[in-house]
């Protein structure tokens, strides 16, 4: 298949206009001996029909879609209204570049402005950016931001923060002289408040905690923020399951200074991990240190409202090595999907979806802990995910469930060796009562 648009005649005319006889001459500036001089060893070309068949065949080699899955842990299966796919697949949204030329990009710019507003409303903060890559890099950028704002060298990271987010923070700070110290969790699955108090000192730039945390337990963000503020450190809240914001109090209202995380839940398919949608919001006074693109409202020469990318003096193309972040491309199309999703559900629909998640998870907890030997691991309040403990290693329970076509939960042992007998179970609005009951019966056999 070819996507070229020149006929032979066009090509000849153009070569003549350029004043050369063949396209080879166009590459005269490349030394002969460095050129490839052979065809690339690649398959194809494939006609569209062949390509479709080949990709469908690759897809079929995924057995996952045939399983009943209760996996969560940073990537969530939620209902996506048809309007999201339908509207976001318009070429006018899919195929433009970053909106540098504002006059011909008002669509994208207004969408970003609406997205920023929705993020502010959900997080309870003043300012939001146009998006970041995904949740883990968002968390890392938030740590760097807290470091820049306070000039302090140490960050306290909750052990209940998504393990992959913790790893990415470690990767990002390694060469910048910032030290990360882990805050342990208590028996209730929440950040251990007395351990945190013991770790706080005047070298701490920020305290970064996730809520609901990786175990699905809702943290006491108010107390955590107060602990951070007591030493003039910043409180950074991570939200990896953004749908929780439809029901739980906004982190900004509870004292968080920066809220960052993942909005994949808002209209983005699981897609094996990406593209997803990182976001970041902060208090007004920190705007000059916020990373990423930001859209702002202004007027044109005739006084009409319009939108532009703004505050570019924070960014790499102006500030080069002094920029707040190296980020350039973000996730505009994903932010568009989230915007359509949120505006379609609206004020009541979002709350209802979040509430149904809470109810279904509560029902699942009741059904599953009724199985002899299965118990709730952490007493802290949970929303749509929770950790169960089994009478034997999870790997064995998991294997028995898979025999029945069920993925009952996410193994925790890798990141939490102390939780060998446990798994993280996620129940969203997409799970029917029958699905939950089926898991209950299968679990009964698996543990007996």
């Amino acid at each position, binding site marked *: 298949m070819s996507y070229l648009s*020149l006929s032979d005649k066009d090509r000849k*005319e153009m*070569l003549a206009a350029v004043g050369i006889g063949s*396209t080879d001459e166009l590459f005269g500036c*490349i030394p002969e001996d460095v050129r*490839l001089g052979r065809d*690339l060893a*690649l*398959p*194809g070309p494939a006609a569209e029909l062949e*390509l479709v068949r*080949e990709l469908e065949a690759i*897809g079929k*080699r*995924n057995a*996952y*879609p045939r399983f009943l899955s209760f996996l969560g842990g940073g990537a969530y299966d939620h209902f996506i209204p048809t*309007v999201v796919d339908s509207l976001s697949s318009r070429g*006018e*949204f899919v*195929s*433009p*570049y970053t909106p*540098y030329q*504002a*006059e011909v*990009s*008002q*669509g994208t710019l207004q969408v970003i402005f609406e997205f920023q507003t929705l993020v502010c409303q959900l997080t309870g903060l*003043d300012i*939001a950016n146009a998006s970041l890559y*995904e949740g883990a*890099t968002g968390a890392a950028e938030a740590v760097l931001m807290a470091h820049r704002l306070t000039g302090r060298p140490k960050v306290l990271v909750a052990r209940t923060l998504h393990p992959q987010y913790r790893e*990415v923070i470690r*990767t990002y700070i*390694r060469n910048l002289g910032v030290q990360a110290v882990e805050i342990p969790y208590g028996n209730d699955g929440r950040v251990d408040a007395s351990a945190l108090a013991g770790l706080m000192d005047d070298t701490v730039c920020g305290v970064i905690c996730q809520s609901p945390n990786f175990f699905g337990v*809702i943290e006491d963000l*108010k107390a955590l923020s107060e602990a951070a503020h007591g030493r003039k450190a910043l409180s950074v809240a991570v939200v990896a399951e953004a749908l929780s914001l*439809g029901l*739980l109090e906004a982190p900004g209202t*509870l004292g968080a200074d920066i809220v960052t995380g993942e909005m994949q839940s808002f209209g983005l*398919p699981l897609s*094996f991990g990406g*593209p997803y949608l990182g976001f970041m919001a902060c208090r007004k006074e920190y705007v000059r240190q916020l990373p990423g693109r930001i859209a702002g409202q*202004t007027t044109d*020469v005739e006084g009409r409202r319009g939108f532009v990318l*703004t505050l570019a003096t924070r960014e*790499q193309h102006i*500030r080069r090595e002094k*920029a707040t972040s190296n980020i*350039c491309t973000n996730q505009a*199309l*994903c932010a568009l999907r989230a915007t359509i999703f949120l*505006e379609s559900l*609206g*004020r009541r*629909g979002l709350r209802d979806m979040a509430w149904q998640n809470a109810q279904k998870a*509560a029902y699942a907890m*009741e059904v599953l802990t009724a199985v002899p030997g299965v118990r709730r691991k952490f007493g802290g309040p949970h*929303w749509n995910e929770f950790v169960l403990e089994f009478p034997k290693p999870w790997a064995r329970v998991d294997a028995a469930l898979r025999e029945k076509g069920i993925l009952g939960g996410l193994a925790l042992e890798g990141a939490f060796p102390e939780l060998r007998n446990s798994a993280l179970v996620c129940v969203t609005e997409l799970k029917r009562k029958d699905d939950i009951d089926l898991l209950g019966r299968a679990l009964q056999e698996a543990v007996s």
Partner: protein
Amino acid sequence: MIKEIREPLIFELSAPGKQASHLPPLDVPETKGVLTAVPLRQDIDGFPEVSEPEVTRHFTRLSQKNYCIDLGPYPLGSCTMKYNPKVNERLAALPEFAASHPEAPDELVQGNLELLKRLEGFLSEIAGMDAFTLQPAAGAHGELTGMMIIRAALEDRGDPRKYVLIPDSAHGTNPSSAHICGYTVKEIKSNEDGMIDVASLEREMTGDVAALMVTNPNTLGVFESDIRRAAAIVHARGGLVYMDGANMNALTGIVRPGDMGVDVMHINLHKTFSTPHGGGGPGSGPVGVKRELEAFLPVPVIGEKGGRYSLIFDRPKSIGRVRSFNGNFAVIVRALCYILSLGPRGIRDIAEYAVLNANYIRKSLEQDYHLKYTASSMHECVFSDKFQKEFGVTNLDIAKRLIDYGLHPPTMSFPLIVHGALMIEPTETESKRDLDLFIDAMKTIAREARENPDLLKSAPHVTYVRRLDEVAAAKTPVLRWEKKG
């Protein structure tokens, strides 16, 4: 098209009680007292409430206010705005891909892992590198990953070193990425041809320099023909060469960075391999390395044994994770589809036709616009507004006037070494007719600059909004809608 679309913000359209999407009623027995121990929100103040027809019209109207590659030429230099094949959108959305959870056990996602492994292999072949990671989410993320790999490799040899050399023509992300890796940036001046000055490289390349970051073709669209000598100088003093692959579209199937002395590079799948830009992402910025740097790639890497694929985390020398999960998978699917569609000859055609189109534009416009650097162009050419300045017309005015002719402007004011730059990259997918439309418009604008400069200075005239006040936007930022009263 309709001349006037005044679309309010969704918040201004909102009225209590409306809702576009509903869930079915709860089908499990309601548990009383759920979440009584935590603070819940009673409402989300100002959150929109609209019907589905309103949502549809809102976004359709907004879409009409965007220019896009599906509508016409989008010759943004350095951005490689080529056509985005429709079938790739369909295939990336196949339920077997779209519904797969990133934490699914390896044996249940063999198709996904195979697909990732195949693209790694294709990119290695195209770039002449030995291994690729598909983890980075965008070009700048790839640069950061690549520079972290360089730092880790040098640390492993005993000394990470202090400096990174970057030409003055480089993208702003280069110095920014190097800085986040803990390096101090030293700028190398370009020579009179706009290329790396080998003599100054020789001087600057001392034992405390970790790497040279180079873009080839550079941001002037000129091939750095001394690249191998430059690489040899860097290597002789124990440094490594990083290549920003943003301009890979000029090279595919012709010459491979790995054969030019490059040790680490990134490729933008959203440029060279046609995945859509989406109005600013999502992208994907895979990083390729030579064999001796493979151990430092981020985790996870994809292993293959006897046709079984797995994610491998046990990599003691790895720089660690650079993001969650497995890269921007749906973007990666599109790039794989593109390569499979084109095949080896088609991949070579990308470079041939991209370079032909750029040279055709250059030749057609070189009487009308000033060309500061005259070395031969590859996939893009960089003019300036020097001729038009005489009439008080700047590159901004030229760009805005192009909009009146139904075209997207080129990249402006970059690279920084060309004052008043107009950086034009047509890509290989443009037809001669559309190239001629662009050329004719540019010629007309050159004439208008002489005859009626005010027409340009007040452009654009035909858009829904006209020139916007960016200074005011930055001075008193309004970054969100707020409920009145």
